């Protein structure tokens, strides 16, 4: 199925682009990522723990970044296979500079992001019903950019191991993240 | 393993079961009552409908351990010990409300709950009441007729066997 959307990051495209090409940053930003190892030029082996409501599963797969066009666009593929099935997402991410727009010379201070691609799931995980796929892939993308924003602003520089505990959703009595460890998430 | 005590159709049972054992498998494979059928794994077909403490439930979406201490009624417990059919069973027979029969035990059990809660349902209420039960053979029309016919036997229904009664 198609996925598409937009996001904004409060820093210029060059910085946003570089963050997304940096495996250390990707490891922190990809929801549930618990390992990311370089296996080739722009290709990384990925371990990912997906936790969503009561559902959970470990996926092994890869991240591949292609068609680099700094700072305008690149293509990203994320795929993983696990006991509960497989997930695959592929798409083009386009970046554009945003300023305050008050004049044509106004400085670019932020990045507008547009992404469009395809998401695919298979195996038992596909049995959860089609209605879940769209909402949950959007949730993952949202979390990815939210985390990237924090990383870009210099907050939330946690170790990859800690990031692994980050979950995509919380249901009743979920374990995995200790209260208080991530005050922003548990706040209010 | 965990020990559970249940009463099924008035008979007390005590067994050690794995916590993951589904109630339907307990009834079918441990107790040996195979009238309750498994039709899907997403709780959407209702073939496995039984009564637990007087409430219609899908026995494929309940672990046997959750029924510890419960009074259970299955399709096998509806007819009188002498074989006299329950009025709902009789209505299903009279109205030709079944073809292959696979969904029928669940249909009969949900009908019992529909009529207990609403003794004189309209066609619309009957159809809404059957919402959790799939039938691929009948197109439902004769089932609707059967529920209606059964509702006319209100006196007989009043003396229904009830789980826990």
């Amino acid at each position, binding site marked *: 199925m198609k996925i598409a959307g937009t996001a904004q990051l409060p820093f210029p495209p060059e910085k946003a682009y570089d963050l997304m090409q940096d495996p250390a940053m990707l490891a922190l930003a990809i929801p549930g990522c618990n390992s990311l190892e370089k296996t080739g030029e722009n290709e990384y082996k990925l371990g990912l723990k997906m936790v969503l409501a009561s*559902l959970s599963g470990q996926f092994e797969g890869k991240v591949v970044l292609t068609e680099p066009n700094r700072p305008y666009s690149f293509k990203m593929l994320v795929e993983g296979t696990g006991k509960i099935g497989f997930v695959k997402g592929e798409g083009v991410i386009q970046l554009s500079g945003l300023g305050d727009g008050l004049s044509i010379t106004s400085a670019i201070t932020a990045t507008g992001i547009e992404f469009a691609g395809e998401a695919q799931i298979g195996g038992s995980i596909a049995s959860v019903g089609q*209605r879940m796929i769209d*909402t949950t892939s*959007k949730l993952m993308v949202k979390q990815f950019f939210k985390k990237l924003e924090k990383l870009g602003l210099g907050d939330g520089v946690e170790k990859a191991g800690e990031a692994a505990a980050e979950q995509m959703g919380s249901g009743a009595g979920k374990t995995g993240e200790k209260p208080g460890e991530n005050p922003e998430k548990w706040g209010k | 393993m965990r020990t559970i005590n249940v009463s099924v159709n008035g008979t007390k049972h005590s067994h050690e079961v794995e916590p993951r054992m*589904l109630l339907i498998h307990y009834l079918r494979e441990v107790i040996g009552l195979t009238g309750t059928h498994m039709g899907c794994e997403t709780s959407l077909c209702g073939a496995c409908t039984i009564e637990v403490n007087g409430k*219609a439930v899908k026995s494929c979406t309940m672990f046997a351990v959750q029924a510890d201490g419960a009074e259970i009624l299955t399709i096998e417990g509806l007819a009188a010990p002498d074989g006299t059919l329950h009025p709902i069973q009789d209505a299903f027979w009279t109205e030709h409300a079944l073809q292959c029969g696979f969904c029928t035990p669940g249909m009969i059990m949900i009908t019992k709950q529909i009529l207990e809660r609403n003794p004189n349902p309209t066609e619309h209420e009957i159809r809404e009441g059957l919402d959790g039960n799939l039938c691929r053979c009948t197109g439902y029309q004769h089932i609707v007729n059967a529920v209606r016919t059964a509702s006319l036997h209100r006196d007989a229904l009043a003396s229904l066997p009830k789980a826990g009664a």
Partner: protein
Amino acid sequence: MIANSFEYSAPGSLKEALALLAEGAKPLAGGMSLIPMMKLRLANPEHLVDIGRLPELNYIREENGELHIGAGVTHFEVESSPLLLGKCPLIAETAAHIGDIQVRNRGTIGGSVAHADPSADYPAALHALDAKIVLVSGEGTRTLSTEEFFLDTFTTALEPGEIVSEVIVPVDAGLTGTSYQKFLQPASGFAIVGAAARVRQEGGKFTLVRVGMTGLSGNAYRARNVEDALVGKEVTDANIQAAAALVADGQDASSDLHATAEYRAHLAGAYTARALRAALARSA
């Protein structure tokens, strides 16, 4: 079709249950969402604590002008409670839309709320009712508004070891009119969209408007833009129509086999208008 093995505990008290949950066990209430996932081996909890039988979570009572519904109360008990039918009919009406008889006999309000399914029925009504969600853990209790509780797709403010203990809804009879209108996904019976409306009018003007929407996007929400567009306005169908048309604004509408984002957004408006009209007809 067969779950992985797990350990099962059926504690006799809430305190005992919370102690087990604090150790990392997962709660099992009615199991209507969890058990199908376990049968598909998508959910593989190691230890389940059965909180579905705790009498401490099973009550519906009126206290200080509010209605307290224990987390263990089933959808059937909500839909058929004389107290709720008389004093907060919206919650009862909404409960009657959930699943089918069998699901309503087992499923609990606490389980549904904690699951935060983006297409669940209750959240729409709870938003419209200004409901409060009470959470409990070994460390104590806290009470959140619905907007504080429902954070995102399957994401709530619940912390590990914490469960929903009750839902508080207002005594809402009298002048207020309410309605829940749902467009069913034909296969699963979940809401493609579900709109809950709650209105009061005085002197031909809307004095209170609450709208909760579920199914449209990744999270049920309170449609404050619709509410703001109506409060103080004349009670006319044109006003309802215009306000309802705003309901999808700013929402990232979901898309699936059963409804495109465009269609969902359209239905959200149409069903919001229907809910508002029906609620209005029931208001004094």
